[in-house]
């Protein structure tokens, strides 16, 4: 019961955020780069919902304009993570043996880099930019999805339908892709959504450290780090993007939790 409500609240918040970020492509209340010295540090009001920043820029416009970069980076990195994870997990799970052993050991090693350390390493190695951020974040998800997909594959492998296909002489490639993988998709939904919320959190962290999405593109994490210098006079500059980050992550956490509950029920 409770989980159903969680799922609904999560979907509502996430839809609003996604809708606003789509609208922001076509329409923004204010120009996000236009500086206006007369309107510096205005507190939240009806004309500027989230107030204005040190350059007199409208924070609401900047926050919803930033959403599409954060969301698209998160989407792309989870997508790459799932694709590579599926490739490795299906191979390791289906063939087993030494291949599986090597893949899983490397995944364990990757997994032992705590938190965003691996992403930081990637950023250090590559040039700053959106593509680097996507690559750096996707590497966080490869071990996560590889493990889930491998254990799913192991379960499916012993099912009769796979054995029958094997006896009929269907190629391993076809069994994996056409027979096993579609059966794993439902169990992946909640993992993908949880991964997505982790990706948003990690992207915000990288941007906060100045290593994520680069200026002049607006990004939530960087808005927070820039706001720190005038925190006392204009706390809304930090609170607005921060609360939006929290709401976005909460919504996807709720959806992910609700989905995994649905799947197990």
């Amino acid at each position, binding site marked *: 019961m409770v989980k159903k409500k969680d799922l609904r609240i999560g979907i509502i918040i996430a839809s609003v955020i996604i809708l606003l970020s789509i609208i922001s492509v076509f329409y923004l209340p204010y120009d996000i780069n236009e500086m206006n010295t007369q309107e510096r540090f205005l507190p939240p009001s009806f004309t500027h919902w989230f107030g204005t920043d040190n350059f007199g820029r409208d924070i609401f416009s900047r926050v919803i304009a930033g959403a599409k970069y954060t969301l698209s980076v998160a989407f792309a990195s989870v997508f790459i993570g799932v694709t590579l994870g599926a490739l490795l997990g299906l191979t390791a799970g289906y063939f087993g043996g030494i291949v599986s052993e090597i893949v899983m050991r490397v995944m364990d090693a990757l997994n032992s880099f705590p938190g965003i350390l691996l992403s930081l390493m990637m950023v250090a*190695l590559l040039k700053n930019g959106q593509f680097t951020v996507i690559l750096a974040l996707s590497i966080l998800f490869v071990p996560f999805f590889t493990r889930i997909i491998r254990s799913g594959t192991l379960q499916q492998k012993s099912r009769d339908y796979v054995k029958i296909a094997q006896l009929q002489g269907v190629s391993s490639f076809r069994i994996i892709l056409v027979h096993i993988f579609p059966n794993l998709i439902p169990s992946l939904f909640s993992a993908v959504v949880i991964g997505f919320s982790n990706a948003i959190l990690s992207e915000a962290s990288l941007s906060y450290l100045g290593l994520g999405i680069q200026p002049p593109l607006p990004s939530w994490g960087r808005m927070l780090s820039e706001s720190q210098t005038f925190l006392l006079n204009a706390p809304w500059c930090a609170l607005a993007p921060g609360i939006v980050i929290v709401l976005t992550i909460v919504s996807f956490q709720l959806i992910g939790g609700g989905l995994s509950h649905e799947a197990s029920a």
Partner: protein
Amino acid sequence: MKAILKRIGITVLTLLLVSLLAFTAFHILPGDPASLILGTEGTPEQLEALREELGVNRPLWQQYFSWISGLFTGQLGNSIRYHTPITALIADRLPITFTLSVLAIILVLIISFPLALLAARKENGIIDKVVSAGNILGMSTPDFFTGIVFIWLFGLVLKWFTPGKYIGYQENIGEFVQYLIFPALAIAIPASAMVTHFLRSSLIQELQADYVRTAYSRGASKGWVLTRHALKNAMLPAVTMLGIIVGSVFSGSIIIEKVFTIPGVGQLLISSITSRDLPLVQTLVVYIAGIVVIANSLVDIVIQIIDPRIRIK
């Protein structure tokens, strides 16, 4: 004993893989670190001299082995940016990050155990629901945002501490620890949410057990059963999480050190990344990952000793 030896074996193997991953990552790049450092202004002689200094003109396997032995002996050469030995740079900052992490772990225990016990007292009760909601919020709030809110609320509005006025442990150990309390709390919140969530479900599961019913039938109160019987059994799965907590606390401190301007290992890592001080980045990454790997296996071994039922796979 055999299981413990096996765990140590796996740990060594993981550490080797971690170092190999980090090393290859920094060496498979097209382009040469010397020209990366000098930029376009470097003359061929300067480039050659720097390559010699970095040791990058030797075969890769030699570089790997000299680096690995350097990790143990501390002979890692100089940082490109600071021109001081890498080991000294890290040794200076390690006590700060270490204190911050230990404080955070203590806070995680102080916060999560009472909350989990309170929530488990009455499943789906009002306290349980509030704690669950708090858990989701705690897990979803980035630690750097919590840190910024703390600076604003406790530092600037309530003036409980002076943001940015970090005091070194060499100067005044008391004030040093005091300054670290709020940063440690910001790191501890997401980790506490994780532990609370986990401990609560394992407590509720334990409450279904036969021994709990027996305890009730002998007239034990709910609080007594929870703390004296169920907690002991519920704790073990929660202790296995300690490894994950160590990792999350360490990576949390990387960011929090920037929020509160604490000159620890995390700040060093970030500044070495922005200044492309690759030898320093490579070493820091492996040290941090190594500490987490070792902490993880220590936790596993301790659990194995406490409760032999749990087999190490």
